[in-house]
């Protein structure tokens, strides 16, 4: 079988000695100015719309502010409040559980469908499937959730009507503490897997046919070929899909907000829902910012962990 084991980190190309003596075009004053000019809109955009709000949130988390009165310095009081708040703790737990199951399901479904579509199939049919799988992603999460709320209604929903035809009793999809989170995950995955699917399709197309042919010549077939050839070569794409999926899942809001409003009890309340409710319904912007900062730290930590682990599992060609 073809050995696909490649170094985890791509070695840097050695700089030719001749280049050192010759000044790079980028080092001339005019070119640098031009480069700065091209970069400026992006840099300004990132600073204004990303850096400033992040810094602003961190600062606001140290203040009490209710929008109406002037902010007053609170030190770490908001963080103390947040750490002792049972709802915040539950929301972090819910979000982590949601993230694990939603991302796993999203990646598995997307990968399975991408591999299926990558096999022998008429071109037009492949296009139909690709569009169909990607379509939910371009729809608004809120409007999808409204429709899904009707479909999964315990008393009047189509889903229970359909399963009732085969003799199954109505399932409390959105009204049971155990089923509600699962239903939110189902709706989320249904909408989101199209993104990972598209990445996998692109990744699969980039795998040279020769590698598969060589593997076939070595006697690899079916699942074995996918496990030892396709997956290692798809691992950079898998990393991107996982990182993006995890970041998105940790920020989930629309689906649980519309489908269950966090209930029953707190069983589907997520961190971003708590941020929204604390800030815009209870007018405790400082505490909401503290929760936001904690979520930011969590996302950074999980992403860093993924990149660290990726050194062992991701293979670049």
């Amino acid at each position: 079988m073809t050995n696909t084991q490649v170094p985890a980190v791509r070695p840097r190309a050695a700089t030719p000695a001749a280049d050192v003596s010759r000044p790079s075009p980028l080092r001339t004053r005019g070119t640098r100015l031009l480069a700065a000019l091209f970069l400026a809109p992006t840099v300004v955009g990132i600073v204004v719309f990303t850096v400033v709000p992040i810094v602003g949130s961190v600062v606001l988390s140290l203040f009490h502010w209710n929008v109406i009165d002037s902010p007053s310095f609170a030190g770490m009081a908001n963080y103390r409040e947040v750490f002792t708040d049972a709802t915040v703790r539950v929301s972090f737990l819910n979000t982590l559980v949601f993230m694990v199951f939603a991302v796993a399901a999203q990646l598995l479904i997307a990968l399975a469908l991408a591999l299926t579509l990558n096999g022998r199939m008429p071109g037009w049919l492949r296009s139909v499937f690709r569009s169909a799988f990607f379509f939910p992603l371009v729809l608004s999460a809120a409007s999808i959730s409204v429709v899904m709320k009707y479909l999964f209604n315990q008393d009047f929903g189509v889903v229970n009507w359909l399963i009732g035809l085969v003799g199954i009793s109505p399932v409390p999809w959105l009204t049971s503490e155990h089923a509600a989170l699962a239903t939110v995950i189902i709706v989320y995955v249904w909408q989101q897997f199209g993104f990972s699917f598209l990445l996998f399709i692109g990744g699969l197309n980039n795998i040279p046919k020769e590698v598969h042919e060589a593997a076939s010549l070595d006697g690899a077939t079916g699942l074995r070929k996918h496990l030892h050839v396709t997956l290692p070569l798809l691992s950079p794409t898998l990393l991107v899909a996982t990182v993006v999926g995890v970041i998105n899942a940790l920020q989930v809001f629309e689906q649980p907000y519309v489908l269950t409003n966090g209930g029953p009890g707190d069983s589907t309340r997520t961190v971003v829902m708590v941020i929204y409710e604390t800030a815009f319904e209870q007018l405790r912007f400082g505490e909401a910012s503290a929760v936001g900062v904690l979520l930011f730290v969590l996302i950074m930590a999980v992403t860093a962990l993924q990149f660290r682990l990726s050194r062992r599992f991701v293979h670049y060609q």
Partner: protein
Amino acid sequence: MTDSHLARRTLLRYGAYGAGAAALAGTAASWDRLTGADIPGRDDGSLVVATLGPAYGPEAIRTLTEGFRKVHPGIKLRINAVQAVDWSDFFAKILTQIAAGTAPDLVYVATEGVQLFAQRLGVPLDRWVKRDSAELKEYFADVHPSLVESMMYEGHLYQLPVEFNAADMYLNRQVLRRAGADFPAPDWNRDDFTALLRAMKKSSGSQFTPYFWTNRLWGGVVPWLFAGGTNLLSESKAPGGSWLWDSFYPAAEREGRGGGFRWTTPQATDGRVEETYDYLASLIQEGLCTRPEGGNGQNLVGVFSTGRVGVTPAGGFWAGGLHLAGMQASGFDVQYFPRWRTQRHQFGAAGYALLRTSKKQDEAWEFIKYAARRDTLMRLFDTNQTTPARRSMLTAARYAESGPKHWPVFYDTLDKFPDTGPIPAPPQVAEVTEVLLKYTGTALASPRSVRPALRRMQGDLEKAMERDV
């Protein structure tokens, strides 16, 4: 040598950059805070009135602006219809506008937000009401004192109510016929109600739920708490208000009135509250009503009008809603909420609150008066999308096309049951509502869940009420 020379030059250059940045930051800091109102064209000198978008369509907005312009040609008016899913969402958006420095002058506020706005943002209307008392006599004579009292806070009046909705009981006539049941009497009680639900269930298929309710502050558990002779928070009345009652209402009607409601101590673990939840849990267990999370107002019209629901609590607003959905006037009817220990009903009212930040307070008062006029409300509420606060507007002609047959129930609720009161909405209303909705879901998961959930609800309500808004 060369290296150190270069480093010094670099150091000087970065020093210059730093000084420039500091100068820029200093200049920016010395400016007054920029707000949304500084955006050119944003503040055109108009009197800005924020309304809940879905409640006021384009036609209503045109009616308000054009009518007001005729009466006050010198006042420029802009209606800002804020799109929101409910009152809580609406208030959040208004507060965001205030934070952005683009606060409206007037905000359409329902009972849910009356005390929040009164405590932190509102201006009492007392001085204008006293000044224009002669002009307002006709208004107060036409509006029930309970509605006016619900707009008072600590002895001051903050809004003139223009609409209200009491939680009465709507019944589907087709479902009643199917069950072989008569239309209930005005003094029906909780046992009659339960028996009716059982009869409806027995005579209908699996895709039918006799009683549909929505888990929210208005029309959810609270009407049952009222009927059970209790409330979520202990209720009392603030002193004061006699300046208004003595001026506008006869002795019989001002008896027992005060300066507005006070909701202070949570009482979720009160025996009567537990009993109310036990009753609702038993209805759910028996399959006679929807679970709290299952019911939402969005699909209610559809399931009621197609006979998949028999009974639901709603106010006068539903007459217009069902008519618009194509339901015949003979297809439904309305009755009072059933009696349990009491037959006290709950209601919510709405009117315009004047914000402290407004620089056009006198003009705003003129709009408040204009919006409460009978002719204005006649044009505004011509589709029965709510119950007008003015008694004289509720006529047979108004309900001839839309129904229901027993339309006098809407206003008579206030007369027949004088203890009928507003939903409990202290200034901490957002958190109170959130706690109520959350633990109502948990409490009604099973009959055994009621007590533990109410204990936790009590704890969270106590925390919420301790917080300063």
